[in-house]
């Protein structure tokens, strides 16, 4: 069996808080094989974004990763030297953020930034780098790329800026891209354009992709596997068909039912009562307990990860019936 491209195990990230350390990520484990797309789904406060940052070592101090292991192509990233991480970032692992202005410097032209990126990792002449940048812009569907290289980020529309960010991420043909809600702020038609581009590029280059989102619909269409996060933990992890057709965790079922389109028009939607706990006030035991219809005595203990058939996993003492 081939080594997975990315193997995260027991990842814990903490932030110091007024009443002690707050665990934004509380024991997350997943694997990503080469060329596969994983959808990391969760609502706000679930820790999905912080998971993405933790993998790349981008967690701002005073927050830090306190436990676990992140193996990229067999190499341990946690505890790696900043220099090694820098050489990997942008080169073999790239990240795309929700706000493209997190990647793009507003006072430099797009061309300057992309050339800088190329030259940071490879010994290429600036002219050759510029050609590469131009090709990358063309690949993501930006018209007249040669002229657009000399434009500033603010001269692009939101969707175009995100494409530039994606093009920048692709410059070194990374093995892994981590995308944190990159299309959430965009219109539906533009979102579809970008999803189409990303899909095509991943298929062409065999890049692994982790797509972090709160939108199950997008993830359904894009991903091969889905991991559902709640309160800092992955509560369910399986192939996309398994998760959406036969969810085992009540939260997953609740999320699916809460989406309009699942139920009849005009009928009340199934709602999950209450709201997600904030990272500062996590409960003992299963974090979903106050909102779960199936909670019982056992749920006062924290559920461990159960390994089901065909590699699917869930964390629940009272999982939904297989076939429910």
């Amino acid at each position, binding site marked *: 069996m081939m080594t997975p491209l990315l193997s995260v195990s027991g990842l814990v990230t903490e*932030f*110091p*808080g*007024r*009443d002690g350390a*707050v665990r*934004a990520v509380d024991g997350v484990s997943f694997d990503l094989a080469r060329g596969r797309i994983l959808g990391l789904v969760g*609502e*706000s*406060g*679930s*820790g999905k*974004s*912080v998971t993405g*940052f933790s993998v790349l070592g*981008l967690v*701002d101090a*005073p*927050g830090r990763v306190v436990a676990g292991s992140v193996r990229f192509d067999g190499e341990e990233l946690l505890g790696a030297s900043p220099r090694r991480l820098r050489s990997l*970032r*942008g080169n073999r692992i790239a*990240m795309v*953020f929700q706000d493209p202005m*997190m*990647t*793009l*410097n507003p006072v*430099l032209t797009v061309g300057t*930034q992309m050339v*800088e*990126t190329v030259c*940071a*990792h490879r010994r290429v002449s600036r002219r050759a780098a510029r050609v590469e940048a131009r090709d990358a812009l063309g690949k993501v569907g930006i018209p007249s790329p040669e002229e657009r290289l000399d434009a500033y980020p603010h001269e692009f529309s939101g969707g175009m800026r995100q494409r530039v960010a994606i093009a920048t991420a692709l410059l070194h043909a990374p093995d892994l891209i981590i995308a944190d809600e990159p299309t959430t702020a965009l219109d539906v038609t533009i979102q579809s354009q970008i999803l189409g581009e990303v899909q095509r590029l991943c298929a062409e280059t065999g890049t692994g992709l982790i797509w972090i989102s709160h939108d199950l619909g997008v993830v359904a269409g894009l991903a091969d596997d889905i991991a559902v996060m709640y309160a800092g933990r992955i509560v369910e992890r399986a192939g996309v068909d398994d998760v959406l057709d036969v969810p085992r965790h009540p939260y997953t079922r609740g999320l699916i039912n809460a989406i309009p389109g699942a139920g009849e028009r005009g009928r009340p939607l199934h709602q999950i009562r209450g*709201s*997600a*706990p*904030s*990272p*500062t*006030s996590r409960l003992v035991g299963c974090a979903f307990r106050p909102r779960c219809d199936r909670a019982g005595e056992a749920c006062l203990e924290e559920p461990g990860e159960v390994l089901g058939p065909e590699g699917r996993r869930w964390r629940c003492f009272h999982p939904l019936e297989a076939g429910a």
Partner: protein
Amino acid sequence: MTHQEPAPTGGAVLPPDAGGEVGTSAARGDSMAGRIAAGILASPKASIAALVCVFLIGAALGAPVLAPQDPYDLTAIDIFDSRLPPMSVGYEGQRYVLGTDTQGRDMLSAMLYGLRTSLSVGLTAGLLALAVGTALGLVAAWAGGRIDALIMRTVDLMLGFPTILVALMILVVFGQGTWKVILALVFVQWAYFARAVRGAALVEIGKDYVEAARCLGLSSGRILFAHLLPNCLPPLIVIGTIQVASAIAAEATLSFLGIGLPITEPSLGLLIANGYQVLLAGLYWMSVYPGLLLLALVFAINVVGDRLREILNPRLVR
């Protein structure tokens, strides 16, 4: 790679909040007064400065009680005791801790009363300027268009001239007097408040709760003063503090130049001016001690004001 470090944690320590349950730690200590107190106590420099301010204000308030001698009481002053150095004993056996001036007045008493005058003029001018500037700033932000342009161009004009120069010109034209000095200072300082409040108000006007207030049919006056003003307080507090210090210093300058307060109400500036004439003769205490007191006052207020600016920084405030 121009990967700017992502700022999902912003200036706060936690990742984006899920919205929190009711009663989380966000509820604690969130009143502005509470935050200010906590913030000042957290900084040793600001704590000391705040103590100094409190001490000086207390001294000024208690001047009639604390001063060994009433410097305005002509019967208490003895010309024979004039120009005595600090810690000397006077004609009737009283000890002058900080010496006496050319008229025989006890320096300590004169300084206490001078502090009282300086502070009251500075505070009055500051508060009046705050009131005028805030009102005009709010009106400018709300009305927009020509009124906004008119007010803001006036503000630009006022801020373009040096403070002392304008105050000088006003006092030369209208003559001396305590209230004239205060009004001159107000005339110069309102512009700072107006500009700051207009900026803060414009930000707030863009927010949905103001639009909701309009939708609910609330009157403009109510929206301005009951909704907008409370949310524009942070810059007001900071600028107010620093402007009070500025007013005190400006009044001292004017008095030093002889066109400020009348001699019957000596402020620290006037004391410095009086002592200045004999400074080169070696009688340093008449000028230097009031000068140090003025310095301490203005400096302490400015340090507190700076700390307030950090505490009330909107980027760090949820």
